[in-house]
């Protein structure tokens, strides 16, 4: 390596915490990488001649006379077509036993897209799941997380979405993933014969937590290569972003930063936004779509991680077990895709927005009726009809095992409207009622 000659080696560390160590050094750049006792580290603070390094693996076993070598560059990933079909760790090194990737070396966490160079997302991503396509349509260039409790099948639903969606590349960024889930994804991708369009960056629970911080940037740097250089449609899956945020809070704690809400660093919003805002529709046709997972604690969305995420992402998807039908459904009340109006009624049939809203409103009426029932009140005829509607709507449309195209979904919904209601109870534009009422 040409830079080899300029590398400076230090052997005197002044202080060590669980995640960081400090030493006196000169000529060091901010964000630069170093190795400490062979372990990868990054400069997080420079104060005079004192440099603080964040050691990704943790500082266990590092002696004060450890060899510290500054590498003169920020973290990088080598990008080329060779990335396809491969599994990597947080540093971008292969973990599938294959050879190292050759290609152009790119710094991860690169610059943002100029907002005026973005294109408005307008391509629908069909998943076949009506809880998504009908009520919360996804669009290329969108960023949207699943808000789910740890016991919900979010990884399975996400995998389903990824396999059904028509994209050129799927990039999986796993943070704090259990080994079992990692093997689930690996088997699924291998068996589907889709391996050549999938790239995975993995940090499992067996790996050091701080290493996770590199995963989203690695995945998105690879995504930018395919979306910008190859004009491909790239879908990035990030699971689980709560684990990522936990790693952030560990580091900020070690750096003596004043924590804000829920012990999270005050910069949590900006840190998460930097990742999610990489989702983009490029004018040349390439796009990056991000579907992430944010696990909740007991369904609490006011916690700092889901809360900040909700303000950044373009909607969120909630899963819920519906005890009436015994299936997991996409919750129509709390789920939202903010970009749906860019495609629904435009790329889909014109009645789509009104049908969607009317069905959810009627579903809400059923929820009210249910409350009445639970409180021991008599139900009106309308309440009864709303309840029957809700059950069938849940089973035929909201359940995650549904696989229909959008026109079929709309027809099924009109069928349910006609079966249970009168037109004036549905509140839809007259022209649509005349056309589709059955």
């Amino acid at each position, binding site marked *: 390596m040409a830079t080899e000659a300029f590398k400076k080696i230090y052997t005197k560390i002044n202080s060590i915490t669980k995640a960081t160590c400090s030493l006196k050094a000169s000529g060091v750049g901010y964000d630069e990488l170093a190795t400490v006792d062979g372990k990868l580290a990054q400069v997080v603070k420079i104060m005079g001649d004192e440099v603080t390094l964040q050691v990704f693996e943790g500082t266990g076993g590092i002696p004060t006379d450890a060899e510290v070598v500054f590498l003169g560059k*920020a973290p990088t990933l080598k990008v080329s077509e060779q990335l396809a079909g491969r599994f990597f760790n947080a540093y971008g090194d292969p973990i599938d036993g294959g050879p190292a990737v050759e290609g152009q070396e790119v710094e991860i966490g690169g610059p943002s897209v100029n907002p005026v160079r973005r294109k408005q997302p307008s391509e629908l991503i069909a998943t076949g799941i009506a809880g998504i396509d009908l009520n919360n349509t996804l669009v290329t260039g969108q960023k949207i997380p699943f808000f789910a409790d740890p016991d919900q099948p979010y990884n399975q639903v996400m995998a389903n979405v990824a396999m059904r969606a028509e994209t050129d590349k799927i990039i999986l960024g796993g943070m704090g993933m259990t080994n079992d889930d990692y093997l689930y994804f690996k088997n699924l991708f291998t068996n589907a014969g889709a391996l050549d369009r999938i790239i995975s960056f993995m940090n499992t629970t067996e790996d050091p937590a701080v290493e996770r911080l590199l995963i989203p940037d690695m995945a998105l740097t690879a995504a930018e290569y395919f979306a910008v250089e190859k004009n491909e449609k790239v879908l990035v899956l990030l699971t689980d972003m709560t684990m990522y945020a936990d790693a952030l809070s560990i580091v900020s704690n070690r750096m003596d930063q004043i924590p804000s809400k829920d012990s999270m660093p005050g910069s949590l919003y900006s840190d998460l936004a930097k990742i999610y805002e990489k989702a983009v529709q490029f004018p040349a046709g390439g796009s990056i779509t991000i579907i992430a997972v944010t696990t909740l604690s007991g369904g609490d969305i006011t916690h700092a991680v889901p809360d900040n995420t909700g303000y950044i992402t373009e909607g969120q998807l909630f899963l819920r077990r519906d005890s009436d039908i015994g299936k997991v459904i996409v919750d129509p009340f709390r789920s939202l895709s903010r970009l749906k109006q860019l495609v629904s009624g435009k790329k889909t049939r014109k009645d789509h927005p009104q049908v969607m809203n009317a069905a959810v409103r009627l579903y809400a009426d059923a929820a009210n009726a249910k409350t009445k029932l639970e409180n021991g009140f008599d139900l009106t005829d309308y309440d009864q009809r709303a309840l029957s509607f809700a059950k069938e709507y849940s089973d035929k449309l909201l359940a995650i095992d549904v696989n229909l195209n959008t026109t079929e979904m709309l027809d099924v919904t009109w069928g349910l409207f006609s079966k249970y209601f009168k037109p*004036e109870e549905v509140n839809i534009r*007259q022209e649509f009622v005349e056309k589709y009422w059955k």
Partner: protein
Amino acid sequence: MATKGKVTGVIANMVLLAVDGPVAQNEICYIKTGGDRLMAEVIKINGAKVYVQVFESTRRLKIGEEAEFTGHMLEVSLAPGMLSKNYDGLQNDLDKMEGVFLKRGDYTNPLDEDRIWHFEPLVKEGDTVTAAAWLGAVEENHQNLKIMAPFGIEGKWTVKSIAKAGDYRITDTVAVIENGQGEVKELNMIQKWPVRVAMTDYREKPRPFKLLETGVRTIDTLNPIVEGGTGFIPGPFGTGKTVLQHAISKQAEADIVIIAACGERANEVVEIFTEFPELIDPHTGRKLMERTIIIANTSNMPVAAREASVYTAMTIAEYYRAMGLRVLLMADSTSRWAQALREMSNRMEELPGPDAFPMDISSIIANFYSRAGYVYLNNGEAGSITFIGTVSPAGGNLKEPVTENTKKVARCFYALEQDRADKKRYPAVNPIDSYSKYIEYPEFAEYITGRIGDGWLSMVNEAKTRLLRGKEIAEQINILGDDGVPVDYHVTFWKSELIDYVVLQQDAFDEIDAVTSLERQQEILKNVTAMCRAEYDFDTFQEVTDFFKKAINICKQMNYSEFKSDKYNSFNAELVKLLETKQVSND
């Protein structure tokens, strides 16, 4: 000689410099690193140790690298040619930047120096002028813009010469002025002004009184905002903050609309870039983009520049107000601005206030809101800045520092509510918690009576009372059951639902329903009030429900139809017929 500094410390975007000369608080400097020049602003001075916030990524910045101070604070350049522009938080013209990705240290001229303007003088030689006096006029996008005396000058100045009517560039000298001390200034069309300083060259700031029409019924009818007023929209995510804000910026009756996208999603700005050049201003019939300026500092752009972006936007607004124009400034979201303040305060290791926000957050917010307002200029003309900010309360909890401190200063409060959003009752503005202080102003009452006649405010108050009454009764029905309350209760409840569905709920994505003119709002409120005031004859609560559902459905169809069209009239006739079936005649 300009003061120079050397880098002695780096923590993210906060950099410590050792300086060799005088430095001012908030002064701008440029740090040179690896061929890039990074703009930074002084935020704290401690002897020769100066803390600066860098408006860019500090990656690879090294100890010992040099900084050069500029001698001025963060300022914007103001001249004709800014309308329809897309700026970043530091007023760089985003369209002039090359490449798809933003490059560090790439600063572009916010103005177009080659563009030619037709200048008409408004003063003559020998006239006396003061700061912000109108010297001449140019036309941009059909708006009459003024070329003004510098905002910063003091005392009386005499016009020594003024350019003749004709075509000039903004850099050409158009006037020469002189003061009593023999100081002479050659003026071109460009003004510079530090963004953190309020521009106060006006005669007085009265209480605002003129309705600012937004076409959004829940605002105009129930809780109106006025020209020069302040308002804020807090709401948890997913309650339609952005949709409401875009609706206001599209439809409001203003001459200039400035949108500060402060730390929000880039795709929302893209939506404006894409739609506004196509959409028509409902008041003038021209393209919306012609009156719009966008300050885009999205969430992934540098944090320090985000903090500056709201000031940049406000200063540009003040420039147009000084021309006697009606400016609407929207900032989405002021919480992101406050968070930027928090990140910096945290890095400076200041003692934190509530939720780790800086202690002075309340005075920062108050000072900012106070820059809005309706003013009479020194020449007697009026101009206004109406400011509406959104707030993104953490966890949807309105008891957090940014919301609380904003509530102290903003006069209109539009509370977006999760529950309404869940029920798809959009816009999800809670009609009971929200308020407009302006509706209580006698100045406003006088104005609105002159505009749409007597009886308006009493109808509005009646509707508000009915909504409150309806909410109380809904709770009782929930507790006692449909059969457990008299039929009358159901009538009262459904009257409030009628107001909710027909007046408050509005489809922002429906071509016709999205904008409602004041005239049409008056008609709707009159209709609904008449239906609420009428007596009905029902035997069972089921009849009440059926009747009002039918009535609501017809009223909604009317809202979806062109005002006074055949379709509208036929629905109206249908409604009259329906009312006759149950209404008790008062003869």
